[in-house]
């Protein structure tokens, strides 16, 4: 299906493992933060056509909260925490007790931003340890808008030469609170080869 860039089943497995360990670490951090059990889905590592990326979170017009971090260092890419509106509200209320329902306040926004930063940080830590690559996350950016609009600029760097993007995605659940989120890693293409090499599965 991927023109020009096929990934072998072994490579996809290795990338799923990256997702697994990365998001496992992130889940522990999240669980400690909110003092609740956090469930993780089996991570997906897929090559997604550009047109389809926003379908991952229910369509381009779905209102979501996105926390974005750019990764630089020895490998580059993007890390995105996406929460549907309801989940974002719930999570914000868990973090900032006593806050009211409805629109997210500045404090709540910054709490979510910080959550994204901590989750991405622990995810990247794991990836860094597995690959021996130095990875530096940027300051987190925060946006509340249509999913398509939040995702599209992340694809810019990747899509200059490809019509597909590699997405390593994990869903997490905080059970009692019906909070669902997506933690997505978009490695840049040059970095993908590097990561695959370090994992011992270069093509």
């Amino acid at each position, binding site marked *: 299906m991927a023109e*020009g860039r096929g990934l072998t089943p072994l490579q996809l497995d290795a990338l799923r493992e990256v997702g697994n360990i990365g998001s496992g670490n992130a889940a522990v951090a999240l669980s400690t933060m909110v003092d609740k059990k956090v469930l993780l889905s089996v991570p997906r590592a897929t090559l997604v*056509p*550009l*047109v*389809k*990326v*926003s379908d991952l979170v229910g*369509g*381009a*017009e779905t*209102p979501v909260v*996105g926390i*974005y971090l*750019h990764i*630089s260092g020895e490998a*580059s890419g993007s890390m995105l925490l996406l929460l549907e509106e309801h989940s974002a509200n719930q999570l914000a209320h868990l973090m900032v007790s006593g806050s009211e329902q409805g629109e997210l306040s500045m404090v709540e926004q910054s709490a979510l931003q910080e959550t994204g930063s901590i989750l991405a940080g622990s995810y990247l830590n794991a990836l860094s340890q597995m690959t021996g690559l130095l990875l530096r996350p*940027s*300051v*987190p*950016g*925060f*946006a*509340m*808008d*249509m*999913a*398509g*609009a*939040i*995702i*599209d*600029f*992340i*694809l*810019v*760097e990747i*899509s*200059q*030469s*490809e*019509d597909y993007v590699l997405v390593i995605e994990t869903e997490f659940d905080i059970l009692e609170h019906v909070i669902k989120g997506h933690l997505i890693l978009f490695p840049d293409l040059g970095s993908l080869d590097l990561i695959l090499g370090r994992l011992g599965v270069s093509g």
Partner: protein
Amino acid sequence: MTRIRDQRESRNASGVEGENATIGSEKQAPEETVNIGVAEYCVTDNSHVLASYGLGSCVGVVLYDEKRRIGGMAHVMLPDSTAITKKGNPGKFADTAIKAMVEEMEKLGSRRADIKAKIAGGACMFTIPGAVNPRNVPGPCLGMQIGERNVEAAKAALREHRIRLVAEDTGGNYGRTMRFEISSGKVTISSIKHGRKEL
């Protein structure tokens, strides 16, 4: 979403789901909405509604020939194809998408002087003061001010093809959905932050 195409409609999709599989030769029901996804474009003289959902830094370009009711929409994500070696589909870049749409509209019988353009999108979704964006250029907008550059590139391509830009809703920090009704020429922009308006 059904993929539609008849003999007078040309569409450049990224060829994901059976590009050749669902081509009907019959006219579809009028006012059917065609989703123009990221990096796609469509030119048609059917009375469809063309829509680009969730434009962030991407730019939606509508071209319309009111006389002949021929229209097109592109959902471009990058400004310029000239520096790129592996170009992929033309709908991805402002310059190639506009060129392709103009040519296809002319094939359907449009004259360049009758084609008018409207554009929307090109926002900057994440602003982080002092952050370093992917090209390592310090700046407030992550993503190389790509939205702004997309808008500029679309305008430059329109000028090059001598097409008049009659309306725009660009910039800002919010996502937009652009809908274009070919039968009436009406273009509407909707966003979560500012509701719906006609362009």
